């Protein structure tokens, strides 16, 4: 009958209207900035650099291999390699970035830099309140602004950070075992030599 659909529609909207006052789960509005949704595991906005421990420069995982700079589609990463080396998380001497800058006005959050990094040093941050009044310099983040501790990484992506830490822990243990084996072998060799020298 003509008008039946209209009546049903009106009943539905009336139910919505009155229901929104009595049933809070009907309203899905999040009143930003007083309320915020918790960011979830796979959220990503712009990259950041991870460092182990407390000292940003000493613990920086980035070895300035420049793979992310080459792979970045809009070319928003700028890296300058250092002249000297510093020890990394296992103890090997590696280069480190003297300058590492990302232009977040250009970055398109594609996560390719994260996928290609062999050293688990660049990861995606979830912070989005990066608006600034300085149009050119304010959106160019340098190395010190990009470096964040591993504890922060564990907070924002717990599952990912757990896998990364496990893998890095394994690498460190393997390297330590290798070093120990080499030093044991060297010690055994030198002990054997000394014994022979003492005998002969």
């Amino acid at each position, binding site marked *: *009958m*003509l008008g039946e659909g209209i009546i049903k*529609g009106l009943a539905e*909207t009336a139910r*919505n*209207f009155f229901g929104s*006052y009595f049933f809070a789960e009907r309203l899905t509005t999040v009143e930003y900035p007083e309320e915020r949704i918790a960011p979830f595991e796979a959220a990503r906005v712009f990259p950041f650099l991870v460092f182990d421990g407390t000292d940003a420069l000493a613990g920086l995982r980035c070895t300035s291999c420049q793979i992310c700079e080459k792979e970045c589609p809009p070319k928003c990463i700028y890296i300058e390699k250092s002249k000297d080396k510093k020890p990394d998380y296992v103890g090997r001497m590696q280069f480190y970035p003297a300058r590492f800058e990302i232009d977040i006005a250009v970055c398109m959050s594609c996560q390719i830099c994260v996928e290609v990094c062999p050293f688990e040093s660049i990861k995606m941050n979830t912070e989005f309140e990066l608006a600034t009044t300085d149009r050119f310099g304010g959106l160019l983040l340098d190395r010190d602004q990009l470096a964040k501790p591993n504890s922060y990484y564990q907070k924002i992506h717990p599952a990912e950070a757990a896998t990364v830490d496990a893998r890095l822990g394994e690498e460190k243990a393997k390297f330590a075992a290798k070093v120990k084996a080499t030093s044991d072998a060297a010690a055994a060799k030198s002990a054997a030599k000394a014994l022979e020298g003492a005998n002969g």
Partner: protein
Amino acid sequence: MIGFFDQIFVLLQHWIVSFLPAAWQSAAGVLLAVVAIICLFPALFALTTVFERKGIARIQNRLGPNRVGPYGLLQPIADGIKSLTKEDIVPMSADAAVHFLAPVVMVVAVFMGFAVLPMGRNMVLVDMDAGLLFYFAIGASAELAVFMAGWSSRNKYSLLGAMRAVAQMISYEVPLLLSGVTVVMITGSLSLTKIVAAQNHYSYGLPHWYIFTPWGCAGFLMYAIAATAESNRSPFDLPEGESELVAGYHTEYSGFKFALFFLGEYLAMFSISGLGTTLFLGGWSAPFSFLNWVPSWIWFFSKLMLSIFVFIWLRGTLPRLRQDQLMNFAWKFVLPMCLLNLFVAAAWRFMGDGWLRWVVCSAVLIAAYVTLGWSEMHRGKIGPRSYRYAE
């Protein structure tokens, strides 16, 4: 004491006017009432904008504006400041004089419509013998303002929107007038105060409002449909359809002129609801005879706000009608129902009191509604669409 609150505004007017010499008193009284109307209805308009936004938001399961005051009630002040401080852009090729006059004509025409509405006992600005005719005449002049706005913008889309708006308003004027004429026929007078007085009787505590009669109920439905179309509200808001024509005939208006059009549209909504209340819902009379102690103007404005709430509810519910759909609806459904309603009302009058006239009139109207509705809904033949291009 009860009568005091009922007549409080009339007494206030007499008291203020008594300070002036006798020769100026009547003119000053009228001027005072005019100022009251000019202050009251834009204030109601401001409140309605925020209620509409919050009402539609709640219907759509979201919160409306809630930042600017407690529950967002001061939002209209923010909107007003915004519209006053925006730059007034007039397109270079636009017809400057007509472009300026269009919102003025619209607002003046709409304000004049409030002059004959009886807002309470003894509270009508001009008690005209031909009050209803005056109201419809002024409403017809508002259409000219819409056309002026669309044409003077020198914008194809504005012109298209204006043509559509004028066509829609003209088509729905006929059912509007015919519903009003039915009421006039039964009451025997064009004067709105007499129409309210005729409805102000009670039997067994129930009122004699015209909506409680078969022809009045049908008439009220037709009037409501025509009123929604006359004030370009959803679902008849194709002329200002934001997704089709940008903003239709007020595309090229910015800042305060746009606010004036907005004001004109909402005031038209108020005045047409006020007229509907007067014609069918008993104007300022109370729903039950034991509620007569509540002041009459409170009843009038409650019924007005109820009508506005129904307008907002309809806007949140129904999708927009296409131009040819709404024209078809006007000429093929609403108009025949209005003509039939006229006959039924005459039959009601001539059958005299009793239960027979209720049964006969209701049966005729319901049968006609079902038949017409069925024929409207089943006539659409699905086939290849044929286009007509403008020459």
